[in-house]
């Protein structure tokens, strides 16, 4: 492996880039916790609407970033066999706003997990600053939402999401091992 950082770059086509709100995982402890990062940049066009003259990352997209970080954590805990979707935002609190140039760290922890659902707690920080606390519940939709129809295959965990985990060994997510480029 030439450069450990390459293993984190995901092979994306432009067709797959429209709803990914995290850039990579830096820690992953299967079934327990994970940390992802997201860079906020002026190149993100939606920022120009929110707000014109002073772009900040919309709070709902921060919720989505946490949902993706923790959704992958929950999905991986079940080997991506279940379609895991966001069912409830138990509580989210925002302490500060985030601007282009900021890098967010999203730390998610599984609080409870059962066959039908999972509950996670999350924190978003930017450097030393606490930006948000976000607690979510995921539902495994085949087991709930009786009567609604949706496709058989797991449309939630596409290759794009799974590839965010490449390069991370799932049973040891220590960042020391990752920085030294060893598996």
């Amino acid at each position, binding site marked *: 492996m030439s450069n450990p950082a390459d293993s984190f770059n995901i092979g994306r086509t432009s067709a797959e880039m429209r709803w990914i709100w995290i850039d990579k995982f830096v820690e992953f402890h299967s079934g327990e916790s994970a940390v992802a990062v997201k860079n906020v940049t002026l190149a993100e066009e939606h920022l*120009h609407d929110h707000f014109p003259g002073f772009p900040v990352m919309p709070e709902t997209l921060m919720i989505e970033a946490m949902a993706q970080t923790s959704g992958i954590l929950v999905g991986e805990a079940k080997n991506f066999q279940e379609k895991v979707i966001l069912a409830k935002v138990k*509580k989210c609190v*925002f302490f500060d706003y985030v601007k282009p140039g900021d890098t967010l760290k999203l730390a998610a922890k599984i609080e409870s997990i059962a066959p039908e659902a999972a509950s996670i707690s999350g924190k978003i920080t930017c450097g030393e600053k606490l930006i948000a606390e976000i607690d979510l519940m995921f539902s495994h939709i085949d087991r709930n939402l009786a009567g609604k129809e949706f496709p058989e295959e797991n449309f939630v965990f596409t290759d794009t999401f799974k590839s965010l985990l490449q390069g991370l060994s799932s049973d040891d997510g220590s960042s020391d091992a990752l920085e030294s480029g060893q598996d």
Partner: protein
Amino acid sequence: MRITTMAETMRFILIDKIISLESGKAIKAIKSVSLAEEYLADHFPTFPVLPGVLLLEGLIESASWLVREAENFAHSMLLLEEARNVKYKSFVAPGAQVEYTVEAKTVEDNISSFTGFGESDGERIVEARFGLRHFNLSDEDSTMAATDAKIIENMKKRWELLR
């Protein structure tokens, strides 16, 4: 420097039209969902539905307009401070429309709180309780007064398009 027009940058507005407003008290708005919205290709492939956080964004935007109108555009920045018990009950697919109903519980100078829900075709899609905070950048930094004015001017133009 990228020069943009209003039409070019309409990418993060999650309501299409405000359909009723009781000043300072309640607001209703609609959003139409179309396959033209690029993120639907990812959410999800083979099963496009409006992402849950964008349903919440629709409620937040509706509430924000209620506040902006009620306070006569006094503040530039309106941000979500907290949300609780946001429940997603069903999906909204392309071709459908969501109607948001938001009621204000309190609207004060710098904070406000709301309950709201979204319905589509008579079915409840989302409900939430949430609070906003409103401020001007110049509250902390007086050199930002011109930026505040610019944001407010843009919001007033947007209001004319939406109401």
